[in-house]
């Protein structure tokens, strides 16, 4: 959706939450003394089941103190504590957690795992706690995230006045999945010093995630942009000063009051002149005044510039909204990409009509450096498709494991097709353009792009899951794409090996190695042929494969007795029998 006018819906969201009674229900469970509590190491928890509402509430409580220190996820890994390991990716391999919260979790690990084993995705679940108890609730919920992959009945973690729990990398890890991020709601009173304990110049590493519901005595508002949340926490710190004797039990009164007040008329921003304000500015002014941060304050003794804060948050929100809306969505460009694939399909067919394989046509074009306009188009299709799929694979890689797996299955067909059609062009490009092999004579396999490897990996996973794929029997070898997308790289390498064998200047040892490689290649090709996995294009008269074969044949004694030699000895075998599926490979 493209909105011409941006809004910030924090007030509306807060009103949705506070009027629903969800917070009251949760707090009542926290403060209830009638529910049996389980005692662990410095931590206790209780489980409450609302049978009629099909809802389970788990509460964590602790009287421990919390300090600034962080612990790295690498350290957890060294202790073989892998509950949060799924949050790490190759791109973002490490994050940090508050040490005290982590210790509480770790010391009670066995009991918590036991508790976790009773959680199923069939019951609705709220995990909650106040202060440091809330921090443990966050960790417990994090450890659950991998269970809840579908959108249905994912848990909601509600904390009351909890300190920040992790660093910027944790926040980044969480933002990989909107599903994950949407499981956290942190309620923060503007008077409570604990949530802003790790904010400011002394604690620059901490970063919030999830949605924050800030409340004053009068009203409440939500923020979800981590940077805006930090700004608000800072602003609160500067007007509220240090601890003013805030009691955590006040949250009970606060949520009850907000619940009562949800049907009252608002008094927010009365008398604030909003002429000339954009809708976004107006929304932000209202959000801040819901927390007692009004422009009138400037006249008072507080050392804070609200107008400045409005501007800062406006910029942050705009940036954040823009990011959210421009997330790469592969489905949007799918049809455009399909067109490029069809163009290449035509290129392949058209080449064949000219009695040349499309690999060789592309290769000849690169090595002679003669580009017709239609060739230039093919270069562009190649480029577009590669860009698209590189991004696409990266997106899939960043998704949480199970979500990513489902995603990969969905794209399996298109991805395989792409790889088999386009990678030969990439190989031609590598061996025959001026970057690549000519500069650094290494085999293609050493520089093969990661996304091709990933795509191949998906196919392996996918066919392992659905083993009934039709890998046997003859198929139309005239129209298929060669299964192994690296086939032509093998051919090029074999061609190089031929040269090595023939080169008089090369020493014997290298020659033997090259001969061995050639024998391996023979087996490889014969294997593909036997399974009808190679396009019959390779047998066209001037193809690289045929050129290689002609060279290879000349090396004395090389082929006379081999299986492939027998097959290649008669053109009728590959031009007719292979196509018809009548050659006897055994």
């Amino acid at each position, binding site marked *: 959706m493209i909105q011409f006018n941006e809004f910030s819906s924090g007030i509306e969201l807060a009103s949705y939450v506070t009027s629903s009674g969800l917070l009251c229900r949760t707090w009542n469970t926290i403060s209830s003394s009638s529910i049996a509590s389980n005692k662990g190491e410095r931590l206790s928890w209780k489980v409450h089941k609302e049978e009629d509402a099909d809802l389970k509430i788990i509460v964590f409580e602790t009287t421990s103190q919390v300090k600034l220190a962080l612990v790295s996820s690498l350290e957890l890994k060294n202790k073989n504590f892998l509950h949060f390991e799924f949050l790490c990716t190759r791109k973002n391999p490490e994050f940090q957690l508050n040490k005290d919260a982590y210790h509480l979790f770790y010391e009670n690990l066995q009991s918590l795992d036991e508790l976790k084993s009773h959680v199923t995705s069939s019951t609705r679940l709220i995990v909650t706690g106040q202060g440091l108890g809330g921090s443990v609730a966050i960790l417990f919920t994090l450890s659950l995230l991998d269970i809840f992959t579908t959108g249905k009945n994912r848990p909601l973690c509600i904390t009351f006045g909890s300190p920040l729990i992790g660093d910027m990398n944790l926040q980044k890890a969480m933002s990989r999945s*909107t599903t994950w*991020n949407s499981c956290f709601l942190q309620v923060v009173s503007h008077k409570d010093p604990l949530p802003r304990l790790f904010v400011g110049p002394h604690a620059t590493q901490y970063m919030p995630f999830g949605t924050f519901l800030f409340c004053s005595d009068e009203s409440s508002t939500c923020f979800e942009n981590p940077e805006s949340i930090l700004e608000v926490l800072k602003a609160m710190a500067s007007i509220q000063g240090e601890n003013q004797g805030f009691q955590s039990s006040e949250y009970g009164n606060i949520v009850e009051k907000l619940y009562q007040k949800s049907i009252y008329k608002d008094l927010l921003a009365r008398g604030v002149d909003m002429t000339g304000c954009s809708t976004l500015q107006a929304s932000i002014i209202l959000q801040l005044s819901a927390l007692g941060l009004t422009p009138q304050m400037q006249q008072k003794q507080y050392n804070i510039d609200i107008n400045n804060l409005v501007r800062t948050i406006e910029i942050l929100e705009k940036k954040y909204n823009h990011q959210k809306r421009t997330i790469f969505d592969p489905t949007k460009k799918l049809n455009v990409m399909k067109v490029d694939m069809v163009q290449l399909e035509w290129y392949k067919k058209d080449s064949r009509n000219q009695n040349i394989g499309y690999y060789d046509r592309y290769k000849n074009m690169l090595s002679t450096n003669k580009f017709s306009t239609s060739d230039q188009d093919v270069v562009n299709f190649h480029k577009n498709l590669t860009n698209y799929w590189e991004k696409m694979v990266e997106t899939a890689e960043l998704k949480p494991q199970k979500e990513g797996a489902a995603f990969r299955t969905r794209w399996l067909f298109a991805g395989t097709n792409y790889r088999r059609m386009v990678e030969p062009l990439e190989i031609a490009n590598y061996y025959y353009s001026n970057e690549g092999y000519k500069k650094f004579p290494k085999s293609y396999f050493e520089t093969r792009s990661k996304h091709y490897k990933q795509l191949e990996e998906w196919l392996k996973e996918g066919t392992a899951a659905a083993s009934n794929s039709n890998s046997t029997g003859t198929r139309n070898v005239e129209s298929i794409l060669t299964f192994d997308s690296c086939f032509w790289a093998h051919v090029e390498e074999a061609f190089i090996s031929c040269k090595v064998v023939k080169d008089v200047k090369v020493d014997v040892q290298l020659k033997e190695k090259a001969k061995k490689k050639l024998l391996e290649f023979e087996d490889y090709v014969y294997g593909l042929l036997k399974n009808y996995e190679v396009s019959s294009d390779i047998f066209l008269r001037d193809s690289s494969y045929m050129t290689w074969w002609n060279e290879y044949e000349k090396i004395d004694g090389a082929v006379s007795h081999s299986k492939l030699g027998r097959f290649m000895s008669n053109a009728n075998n590959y031009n007719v029998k292979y196509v018809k599926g009548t050659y006897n490979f055994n």
Partner: protein
Amino acid sequence: MSLFNFRNCCYGDSKASGVDKDLPQSHEDSLLGLRVDLIKKACALAFKAHKSPKKYYLLEKKNRSWLEADLIIISFHGSWASSDWFVDKSYGVTKINQQLFPSLKSIGNDEAALVNEAFQLRFESILSNSSLKHEVKEAMTKGKQLMFTGHSSGAAMAILATLWVLEEYLTNNNKNKNHKLPQCITFGSPLIGNHIFSHATRRENWSHHFTHFITTLDIMPRILFAPFHSIQPIFSSILQLFNPKSKSSGTDSETDRVISEFYSTVMRNTATVTSYVISNLMDDTNLLLETLPNLVDLSPYRPFGNFIFCAADRPPVVVRNSDVVLQLLFYTARINDMSEVSDVSKKSIMQHLRYEVELQQSFEISNVVYLDQLEELSLAADGSNRLTVSTALDSFGLDTIARLRLRAAGEWQKQKYKNEEKVNREFNEKAAATMKHLKDYKETCEISYYDAFKVHKDERDFKANVKRLELAGVWDHIMEMLKKYELPDEFESKAEWIERGTMYRTLVEPLDVANYYRHFKDKDGGPYMDKGSRPKRYRYLQRWLEHAGRMKSEDDYSESCFWAELEEIWKEINDNNGSFEDVKERVLKLETRIKEWFEKGKLDKDVLFEGSTLVNWWKALPPNHKKESPIRSLVEMSQGINMQ
């Protein structure tokens, strides 16, 4: 002569409005095209109906001085039994009866509207037990004007009756020039359906048949925002307060407490629903909006039709945007603080019964306020984009937050039209020429169109494939927007789009089928017609056409994709060594339909060209069957022509 002046109505029923010199022209005498004296009379009748709870409805058709000869007013009484309001589910909704109300659904998405089950049950019983059907038939045949009215749950009956008449008499199949459009005027109506109900009535252009009067504090239109269990213990006693025959006076302190509790519960749930909906309109990427609905059961009910907010001390305020109505339902009935709750909650009950008085007084104030173009609404409470609007909003106590919400609702509406414009532009710039290209391709194919594409031999076939994909891009984009309701409600019933869609589907879908079988996608994906294989765009477009013509749905296959069935039968016989007997019924069914499509001109003769899959397929059928085959003469004739 029509009694209704649609002068103020922005929707296009010009036939119904006509030109009428005798009608009162000043807006003091008419409101939203309805004559004020008629509104008052309807109100009186709606209340009168309560007094005869044994009768299913009251019918006024006598030729009286205030009543034109061809007007019939039917009014329904309310019910004060809790079971007539809620069946025992959290919000008491059910899928609407698609036999009675086939239009009340989302067409492409193929999702039926939800309706209050108790109301629907009561209406079904009225329809089958009373003489309503008969009366309506007589009135419609004679070209009389029907007006349905009701107060409280009687209003729900009036709404369903009106919708039923619209479905029965005014959709394509039985449209008759002689028929007059029915009108529905309700007073203090509860909400009765969900967002699809609301969407479908707007799509069918029926909104303006429904004028809902509500007094600003009346609790009734808000009640169904509360889950039944939250009000169940007190609901029966609340209903008794409305019952004119009830003995309870409603003055003791226990009653006060019950009323306060009822009001607070209903209003808090109203706050939850309205905040949820507006959050979505303002920014649909909010994280909490993903998780919270799993934990908070939200009421599905939404307003539909035109609303007129009335109060004795202010002019009537007309609101046509349902999202705005929803927000106002919350904002017009808030309190300043706890001290007001007892007073306001009592009013919220009393006002439900004071329609005759409140309307009378409200109508005496001479200007009517139309709340439109809210996307330009000034945010400041003393803003002055239009004085009357501003005064009206001030008098409702609408603060800046509320104004922002109304603006968001207004912009959302405007955005839908912008989206349509964009889609239109894209279609004209790209799709039209591409369609032309494919049409030429089809006409110049030497063999059948389907087969030419399936063989895919020449460059022109590849070019056609590129065009196919370009069009898929355009239409897939439209389908995505429809799924998210980002296009105007009436989009799926616009003749222009249905025509474009049908042309596209019949021209291009054969290519999709050909492509599917050309690449052997059936080996992994199963038959083309299976769910998940046939692209959504074709399924949606077929439903558009079927709905527009109120046709029976061809769920299995239509003329644009019968090739798939052909391929599947072919496979069944050849690959799986099946016998003809196994597929005989399918063959016969397909042949019968092919014949029918030919007769209707839905298939072109190229499908019968020599060598086409259809002809080859038919030729391979057993001789005994071919003798009796419904398309024998068709095939033979076309082969004869080809041979000449």
